[in-house]
């Protein structure tokens, strides 16, 4: 079974770490990631930029808003990682996805740090009926 672990914390706090504090936390996490990689348990992981960098596309009306997705009556259902030139290109991808699956919103957030999937075979291979 594949699981996604979604990380929540107060960003005003997490983005006001000093360089040393940041290095300590990131160093500790890197060690855990290393072990998980050896155990073949870790897929891709990533750190998002602060919500101030977010842009939200409201899918039904195709309205682009600055800031993170703020409604509380909708739930987080999935995540895409895309590799494009800039925000405009990212919005283009989001609009293509929106056409196939209208309703709700997409929040687009630049990725600050991306650790690729080191497993072999390729990610997703363990998914499917068992």
């Amino acid at each position: 079974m594949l699981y996604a672990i979604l990380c929540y914390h107060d960003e005003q706090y997490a983005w006001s770490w000093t360089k040393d504090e940041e290095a300590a936390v990131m160093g500790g996490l890197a060690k855990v990631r290393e072990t998980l990689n050896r155990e073949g348990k870790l897929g891709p992981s990533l750190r998002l930029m602060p919500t101030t960098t977010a842009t939200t596309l409201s899918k039904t009306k195709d309205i682009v808003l600055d800031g993170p997705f703020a409604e509380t009556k909708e739930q987080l259902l999935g995540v895409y990682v895309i590799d494009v030139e800039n925000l405009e290109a990212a919005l283009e991808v989001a609009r293509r996805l929106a056409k196939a699956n209208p309703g709700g919103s997409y929040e687009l957030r630049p990725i600050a740090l991306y650790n690729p999937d080191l497993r072999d075979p390729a990610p997703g291979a363990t998914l499917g009926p068992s």
Partner: protein
Amino acid sequence: MNDLAWIDGAITGARPQAVAALLRYFRDLDTAEEAFQEAALRALKTWPRNGPPRDPAAWLILVGRNAALDGVRKTSRQVELPPDDLISDLDDAEAPLVERLDGAHYRDDVLRLLFICCHPDLPATQQIALALRIVSGLTVPQIARAFLIGEDAAEQRITRAKAGIARADVPFEAPGPVERAERLGVVMAMVYLIFNEGYSAGAAERNALCDEAIRFARLLLRLFPGEPEILGLAALMLLQHSRLPARFDGQGELVPLDDQARGLWDGELAAEGLALLEKAMRHNRPGPYQVQAAIAATHARAGRAEDTDWAGIDALYAALERMQPSPVVTLNRAVATAKVKGPEAGIEMIAPLEGRLSGYFYYFGVRGGFLRQLGRAAEARVAFDRAIALAGTPAEAARIRRHLDALAREGGGRIQT
């Protein structure tokens, strides 16, 4: 990360909103600050035992307000009230308060608090000291270190600033759109001033000021997420700050942009700056901060100094000149123009500025550089000598002396550019 570090971080993070809301209740800066201090003390006692509250800012506002009101009641009626750590579960009271904190109310609170700190009657140094004390919560010794002054002097700066704003009359009603935009402009200018206090100085301790300024900008952005000039200001500071690891050499001397080891630049900060600038530019409402951020972004995108798009920078400075005409902007533009069209064009562009910039170190440094490139060694030496006489820091003077040494080596001959 241990509990106390988390609590400390949470209190610092919640400080601007909490002090701002308390200021609205009490309409007095000292009372608001004391109420917050009291709430923070109680948080340090209560949170390790009961766990952190869901919304630290709301907790601090509620407890701070009650503590200050208790103080008033106690002195007037001498009635004992139960201590806050006995009524530890504030969840019920938190909910409606969080509701009230949402949206415009809270936004105007924080803006008002920042705006009060940059009252026009206060000199810039007092504005900055006050904002760092009240909004960021830096201690007096921290502020003294940041300004490279004694603690007594820092204390005095803050006391004077408080006395100054006590006389000022900032209305507590929610501002109209025009007034809000004006306040925002004043506050952004102060934030950039804080950044430059840290950025222009060589000493490493002052970098804390750059970090604080970036925190202010992120705070403003959370309040006004779609304001292109705030996006621009945040992008500008992040991009400039990303160069910090390469800006000083082993002797603590400033390394000019062209000579910096670009591999040392902080890619994460730069990427965030670029992302914010991109968001800003989608609005098609350019302003001076966005243009300056675009200039910094052009440098950030150049892998090597010789890859810099100087024609693009020249065009951006031309836009900045139209928005904010100033001899310093023209001087900066001349550096870009000279890279594209040669030093002759640069000299021509700065010639009319001499009268207004006759006391400006950088003007003579730039002029000397152009003259040196043109092989006019004697004139270059005169310009460099003037620059040294006007240098504000030893590092500035040292930079010019290196030019003079190079001139001496060249023996006054024409050099390649």
